[in-house]
C-alpha cells in the first residue's frame, strides 16, 4: 500500500516538475525573442511552414465541415420551419467553435508533429548542442520563431477556415438543398456579431501558442533514441490536442 502511494506521489511530483519546466521553457523563449538579433527571416520561414503549407489541409477540412454542418443543420431546422436560419447556424458554429478548434487540430497534426520531429532529431544528433557551442541560444534561434509563427499563423488559418466553411455550407444549403440564397447570407450577416469574431480570434491565438509551445517543448527534451523521438511526437500531438479541447471549454466559459 505504501509502495502504491509512494509511486503515485513520485508520479505527481514528476508531472508538476514537467509543468514547471514547460512554463520556464516558453518564458525563456519569449525573453530571448526580445533580445537582438531579431530573426525576422526565421519567423517568416516558420510562418511559411506552419501557415502557408497548412492551407490545403485547412481548406479541405473547412469545406467538408461546412458542407456537413449545412446538411445536418438543414434537416434539424426544417422540423421547426426555420431553414432560413441555416446560414446563421453554420456561420456561428464555424466562427465560435469549429473554426478555431478544427484548424488548430489540423495544424497540430501536420505542422506540430513535424516541429517535434525536427527539433527532436536536432537534439539526438547534437545539432542543438552545436548551437550552444557556437554561443547561439537555441531558444532564440529555433524555438522563439516557431512560437511567433504559431501565434500569427493559426489565426490567419482560422479566418480562412471560417470563410471556406461558410461558403461550403452555402454550397450544400443553397445549391443542393434549395435554401434561399438571400436568406442564407442575410442570416449570416444578422447573427454574427463582433464578439463572436474576436472570441474566435482570441481562441485561435491561444491555440496557436499551445501547438507551437507543446510541440517545440517535446522535441527539445526528447530522449536520445528513435523510440524516444517517436514517443515525443505522439505525446506532442496528443497533449496539444487535449489542451486545445480543454482550452476551448475554458475560453468559451470565460467569453460567454
Amino acid at each position, binding site marked *: 500500500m505504501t509502495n502504491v502511494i509512494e509511486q503515485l506521489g513520485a508520479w505527481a511530483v514528476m508531472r508538476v516538475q514537467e509543468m514547471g519546466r514547460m512554463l520556464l521553457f516558453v518564458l525563456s523563449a519569449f525573453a530571448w525573442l526580445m533580445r537582438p*538579433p531579431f530573426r525576422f527571416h526565421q519567423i517568416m520561414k516558420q510562418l511559411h511552414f506552419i501557415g502557408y503549407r497548412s492551407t490545403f489541409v485547412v481548406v479541405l477540412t473547412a469545406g467538408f465541415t461546412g458542407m456537413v454542418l449545412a446538411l445536418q443543420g438543414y434537416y434539424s431546422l426544417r422540423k421547426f420551419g426555420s431553414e432560413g436560419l441555416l446560414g446563421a447556424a453554420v456561420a456561428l458554429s464555424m466562427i465560435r467553435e469549429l473554426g478555431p478548434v478544427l484548424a488548430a487540430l489540423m495544424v497540430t497534426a501536420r505542422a506540430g508533429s513535424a516541429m517535434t520531429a525536427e527539433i527532436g*532529431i*536536432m537534439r539526438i*544528433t*547534437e*545539432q542543438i*548542442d*552545436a548551437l*550552444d*557551442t*557556437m*554561443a*547561439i*541560444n537555441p531558444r532564440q*534561434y529555433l524555438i522563439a520563431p516557431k512560437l511567433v509563427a504559431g501565434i500569427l499563423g493559426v489565426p490567419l488559418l482560422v479566418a480562412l477556415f471560417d470563410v471556406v466553411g461558410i461558403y461550403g455550407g452555402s454550397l450544400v444549403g443553397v445549391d443542393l438543398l434549395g435554401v434561399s440564397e438571400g436568406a442564407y447570407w442575410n442570416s449570416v450577416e444578422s447573427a454574427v456579431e463582433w464578439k463572436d469574431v474576436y472570441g474566435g480570434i482570441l481562441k485561435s491565438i491561444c491555440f496557436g501558442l499551445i501547438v507551437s509551445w507543446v510541440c517545440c517543448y517535446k522535441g527539445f527534451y526528447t530522449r536520445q533514441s528513435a523510440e524516444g523521438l517517436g514517443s515525443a511526437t505522439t505525446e506532442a500531438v496528443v497533449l496539444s490536442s487535449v489542451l486545445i479541447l480543454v482550452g476551448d471549454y475554458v475560453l468559451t466559459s470565460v467569453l460567454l
Partner: protein
Amino acid sequence: MIKLVGVEKKLGGQPVLQGVDLSIPVGKLTTIIGRSGEGKSVLLKHMIGLMQPDRGEVWVGNVEISRLSGTPLNDVRKQFAMLFQGAALFDSLSVFENVAFPLREKLRMKGPEVGRRVEEKLEEVGLAGMGHKFPAELSGGMRKRAGLARALVMEPAIILFDEPTTGLDPLMAKSIHDLIVTMHRRLGFTAVMVSHEIPEIFGISDWVAMLRKGKIALMATAAEFQQTADPEILEFISVGGAVALPGSLVG
C-alpha cells in the same frame, strides 16, 4: 587555459566523474583516452559548459564557468569550437551554409567575404566544390571534414574533438587525424581530443590523459605515457599494439 578542479558528476544516479583534476596545456594537442563509458565525452562537455558539475570547478582562463549561464557563458564560448562525434551538421542547410553559419550568426558577416572564407576553409579540409551538397549526401568522412571546416572558420583559440574518427575506416580515420594535426600546427589552437584510436593518438598528440574510474589516472607527454609502469594502463594501450608487454597476454 582550461583547468578542472575536483569535478564530480553523476548521471542517472550513477557517479561518472569522481574528482577530476586536469590542466590542459595551451597551444598543445591533448588526447583523453579511457574505456568506453568512463565519461570522456562528459568530461569534454564540462570544458565548454554543455554540462555543469555537481561539485568542483571548471576554469577557462580566469573565468570559472561551472555556474555560469546565458550571456556570460556565451562570452566564454566564443573562444571555443567543437567537432562532435557525428559532426552535428545542420541537415536543412548545405555544406556551404553550415560552414558560413557561425560567420553570419555570430559575426553578422554578409556579402562576398563570407563566400571567400567558406571556400578557403572547404579547400583546406579537402571539400572544395562540395559546398552545394547537403549533409545527407555526404559520406561519414566528408561530414567530419565539413564539421571541422565549420569549427575552424571562426579561428577559435580552443577546439574540442569528440571522437572525430569513430565509425570511419582506418584510411579515412588517418586522413582526419592528419588534417587535425596539420590545422593544429598551422593555426596553433589548443586542441582537446577524445579518442579510442590507439596507437595512432600517440603519434599525433603532445599530451595524453587517461580517465579511469572517474579520475585522471595519468597525464603525461605521449612518449612518457607509453613508458608508464601502471599495469592497467599498459594493458589498455597495448591492445592497439603500441607497447609490447613482457610475458603473455593470455589469461
